[in-house]
C-alpha cells in the first residue's frame, strides 16, 4: 500500500513535463525539488534523531560552492606565499566532492556538539552557518564575495552508448532533480529501517535504555549528521549547476527556516513528510505571487504554517496516517516515571 503510493507519486512527478509547459512553473518545481532534497536530509536529523540543525543551509551552501569551484577552477593565494591553482573539473566530480566536503563538515559539527547535544547543537549549527557565510562573503579571491560565482557550468552526465549529455534545459534538470530525490528518499528509507535507523529511534525514545543495550550515542548521532550533511551538499550542488550563479546569500538563515517549516508541516520523522511539506511551501509563492505583495506573502506563509499545525499538530503525513490507519492500541502517556515503587509496595 505504502509502496504503491510511492510508485504512483514518482510516476505522477515523472509525467509532469508531459502536460506542463510553463517554464516558470517548471523552474519553481525544480528549485522546490532541490529544497525538498535538503528538507529530507534535515528530517533525517530532526525527525529521526531529534536534533535540530538550525544551520542546515550551511551544508547545502558548502555543497553549492564546492561544486561550483570544482567545475570553475580557481587560483588563490595562501599565507607564506603558497598558491593553489585548480583547473576546472567536470561538474559531476564537483557533485561528488560536494557530498564529501559537506559530509566532512557534518562530521566536524557533529563531533563538536553531540557530546552535549540539544540546545548546544542548535547553537553550534547556527554559528557554523554564519561563519561559513562570512567566509564566503569575505574570501573574495576564492568566492568572488558578493559579486557571486557566475557562469557555473551545467552538469554533464555520461550515458552509456549515448555519449555525454549536458543538462541545460529545464526538462533535463527536472528529471535530474527527480532522480536524485528518488535516490535520496530510498537511501533514507533504507537507512531508517536498518539497524542503524533503529539505533536512532531508540536514542530518541529512551536514551538511557538505548545506551544500556549497547547503542553508541556519539557515533550514531555523528553518522546521522554526516549522512544528512552529505545529502544537503548534494542538493546544494544541484542548485549551483542549475541556477548557475551562487552568492553568499545562499547561506541566509531564512533558507534553513524554510527547510525546517517544510519538515515540520509535512511531519518530522515521516519519510514522505518533507516531500509533502516541501511541495506546499515550495509552490505556495508561485500561487501567492500574482495576488499578493511580498510582505503579505510572508504573512500568508505564517498563516498556512500555523493553520496546518493547528489542525494537524504532528504534521500532515503522520496525522493523516494515524487517521486512516486501522485503529491500534492508543499509546497512553508514558507514566513509567510517574509511578514509584515506593508507593506500590514496601517489604511485603
Amino acid at each position, binding site marked *: 500500500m505504502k509502496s504503491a503510493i510511492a510508485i504512483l507519486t514518482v510516476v505522477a512527478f515523472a509525467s509532469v513535463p508531459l502536460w506542463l509547459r510553463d517554464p516558470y512553473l517548471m523552474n519553481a518545481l525544480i528549485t522546490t525539488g532541490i529544497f525538498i532534497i535538503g528538507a529530507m536530509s534535515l528530517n533525517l536529523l530532526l525527525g529521526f534523531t531529534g536534533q535540530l540543525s538550525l544551520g542546515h543551509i550551511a551544508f547545502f551552501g558548502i555543497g553549492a560552492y564546492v561544486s561550483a569551484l570544482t567545475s570553475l577552477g580557481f587560483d588563490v593565494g595562501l599565507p607564506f606565499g603558497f598558491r593553489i591553482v585548480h583547473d576546472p573539473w567536470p561538474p559531476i566530480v564537483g557533485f561528488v566532492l560536494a557530498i564529501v566536503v559537506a559530509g566532512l563538515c557534518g562530521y566536524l559539527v557533529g563531533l563538536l556538539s553531540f557530546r552535549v547535544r540539544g540546545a548546544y547543537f542548535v547553537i553550534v549549527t547556527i554559528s557554523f552557518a554564519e561563519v561559513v557565510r562570512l567566509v564566503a562573503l569575505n574570501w573574495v579571491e576564492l568566492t568572488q564575495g558578493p559579486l557571486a560565482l557566475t557562469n557555473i557550468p551545467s552538469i554533464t552526465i555520461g550515458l552509456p552508448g549515448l555519449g555525454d549529455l549536458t543538462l541545460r534545459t529545464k526538462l533535463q534538470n527536472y528529471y535530474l532533480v527527480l532522480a536524485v530525490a528518488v535516490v535520496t528518499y530510498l*537511501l533514507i528509507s*533504507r*537507512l531508517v529501517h*536498518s*539497524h*542503524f535507523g*533503529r*539505533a536512532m*529511534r*531508540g536514542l530518541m*525514545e*529512551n536514551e*538511557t*535504555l*538505548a*545506551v*544500556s*543495550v*549497547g*547503542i*553508541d550515542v556519539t557515533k550514531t548521532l555523528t*553518522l546521522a549528521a554526516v549522512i544528512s550533511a552529505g545529502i544537503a551538499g548534494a542538493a546544494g550542488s544541484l542548485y549551483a549547476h542549475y541556477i548557475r550563479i551562487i552568492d553568499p546569500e545562499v547561506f541566509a538563515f531564512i533558507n534553513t527556516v524554510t527547510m525546517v517549516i517544510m519538515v515540520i508541516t509535512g511531519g518530522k520523522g515521516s519519510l514522505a513528510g518533507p516531500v509533502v511539506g516541501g511541495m506546499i511551501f515550495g509552490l505556495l509563492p508561485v500561487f501567492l505571487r500574482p495576488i499578493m505583495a511580498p510582505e503579505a506573502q510572508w504573512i500568508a506563509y505564517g498563516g498556512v504554517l500555523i493553520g496546518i499545525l493547528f489542525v494537524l499538530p504532528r504534521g500532515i503525513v503522520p496525522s493523516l496516517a494515524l487517521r486512516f490507519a486501522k485503529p*491500534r*492500541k*492508543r*499509546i*497512553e502517556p*508514558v507514566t*513509567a*516515571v510517574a*509511578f*514509584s*515503587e*515506593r508507593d*506500590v*509496595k*514496601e*517489604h*511485603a
Partner: protein
Amino acid sequence: MMPAPAMALRVEKVAVHFGGLVALSDMNFTVGEGEIVSLIGPNGAGKTTAFNVVTGFLDPTRGAVSYRGTALNGLKPYQIADLGLARTFQRTSVFPNDTVYDNLLVGLHRQGRVNLLEAILGLPRARSSERRLRERASELVEWVGLERRARDLAGSLSYGEQRLVGVALALAAEPSMLLLDEPVSGMNASETHTFVELVRNIRDRGVTILLVEHDMPMVMSVSDRIVVLNYGRIIAEGPPDVIRNDPAVIEAYLGQGATRA
C-alpha cells in the same frame, strides 16, 4: 560442601559521593558465576547507585569493579554491555512508541551490526542478518512470555508487562550476567510468581543474576545469597535464612518503617 563458584563480579572498596551526600561508602562484595545474589536495603540505601557504578552509568568516587577479571573502571556502558553485563532499570524500561517486537529489534543492536552500505543496498549478508535478528526477537518475546503482546506498543502495556520487556531487552544482549533493578514492583502476586520462575529459568541457562528488590518473600525464595545495604554501607551478607534473622537487618528495616509511620 560445594566448591565455591568462580568469581564473576567483584566490587572493591567502592564509594560514591554526590557532593556532600555519601551514597555508597567502602562497598565490597562479589557474585559468583551462576549465582543469584540479591542486593537489598531500605529506600535510598544506594542499591541503584551500585548498579549504575557496575554498568558504567556512574564513575565511582573511589574503588574498583571488575567482571571476570576485567577492570570496568572508565569503560562506557556499551563496552560493559559487550563484556556480557546487562541490566534493567528501576523506572524506564521500554521504548514506548515501538511495538514490543520492535523494542527487541532495537535491543538486538549489538548483534545486528552489519556494514551500513550493505544494509542500504540490501545485500544478502545484511538481509540474512536481519532475518536472524527477527527470529531472535521472536524467541526473546516468547522467552519472557509476551507473545500475545508482541504487536502492541510497549507504552500501552501494563507496568508488569513493561518490566518483562525490560528483561527481554537486557537478555537480547546475550549477557552472562544480568542485573535486575526492582523487576517485580508493579506486578501482582501471580505475575511475581511467574517472574520468579523466569529468573530461575534465566539462571539455569547459565546467566549470573544480581537482583535489587523490595519484595522480601520474592527475594528470600529466589536468592542464593543476600547483601544488605543501609545508608551506603553493607550491614550484612549471607544466605536468606541467616539474613532473615539478622538483628542489624531487622533493625534497619524496622527503624526505617518506624520513622516513616
